[in-house]
């Protein structure tokens, strides 16, 4: 027996750590890592509710989220490397070309 709210609190903690990472980090690669933590929190919720409801759908969508996360990291790191090549920095505070 396992209590569902404990899993939800764990997932909420992972999500909050990810939010802090996105807001506090200046290195673009570290921001992407924090986004991975947030996506993982969502996956934990999906799998927990799939187990509690006895419905496999949550697991299927967790797999979809993992695939989207892989695509996101591929594109994100390509953009980061391109910014580094052009500006010689990946500090997100200094990359403000589109800032009005």
């Amino acid at each position, binding site marked *: *027996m*396992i*209590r*569902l*709210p*404990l*899993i*939800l*609190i764990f997932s*909420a*903690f*992972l999500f*909050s*750590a*990810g*939010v*802090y*990472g*996105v*807001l*506090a980090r*200046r*290195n673009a*690669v*570290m921001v992407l*890592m*924090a986004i*991975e*933590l947030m996506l*993982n929190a969502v*996956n*934990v919720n999906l*799998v*927990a509710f799939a*187990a*509690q409801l*006895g419905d*496999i*759908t949550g*697991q*299927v*969508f967790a797999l*979809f989220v*993992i*695939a*989207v*996360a*892989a695509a996101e990291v*591929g594109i994100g*790191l*390509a*953009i*980061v*490397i*391109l910014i*580094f090549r052009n500006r*010689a*920095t*990946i500090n997100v*505070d200094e990359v403000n070309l589109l800032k009005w």
Partner: protein
Amino acid sequence: MSAQEYAFIVLAVVGSASAIAVVTARNVVHAALYLVLSLLSVGGVYLVLGAEFVAWVQILIYVGAIVILFLFGLMLTKAPIGRDTLDNQRRWLGALVGLGIFAGLVFMIQDAFDVRGDAWAFEPVQATTEQVGSAMFRSYILPFEAISFLLLAALIGAVVLARKDDAA
């Protein structure tokens, strides 16, 4: 408390501590390695919940592919070490927002679910790979095709973005 709950709590404590380490580590490579630990404990949570296939996909794709991509990204970009270059000057504001979100979520969870009682306790049933496969290819074939198209677009996009264009 049952054995499953003990296993979950150990995994959750390890995962939460390494998640904190990911967002506070001063060395970027250490942060990537803490991310491995955090993702592995999330995979362990999936095993405890009986989602075996998702757990192995998590370990294969996240630990095997995504973290390796992160390490390559860190190696190809200059990675200065130290709190002042890695973190924002006003990181306490970020900490405030993170704590606020956590407090709000925990309040809503304990409001909607009975945290202390056993009303929401359940016995995890092992989900076989066959069940996952037939659900994916019978009911969710359209999202599956959309994901495969997305992966193709991401593949081409990453190649186009990262290519060194000598002519231009």
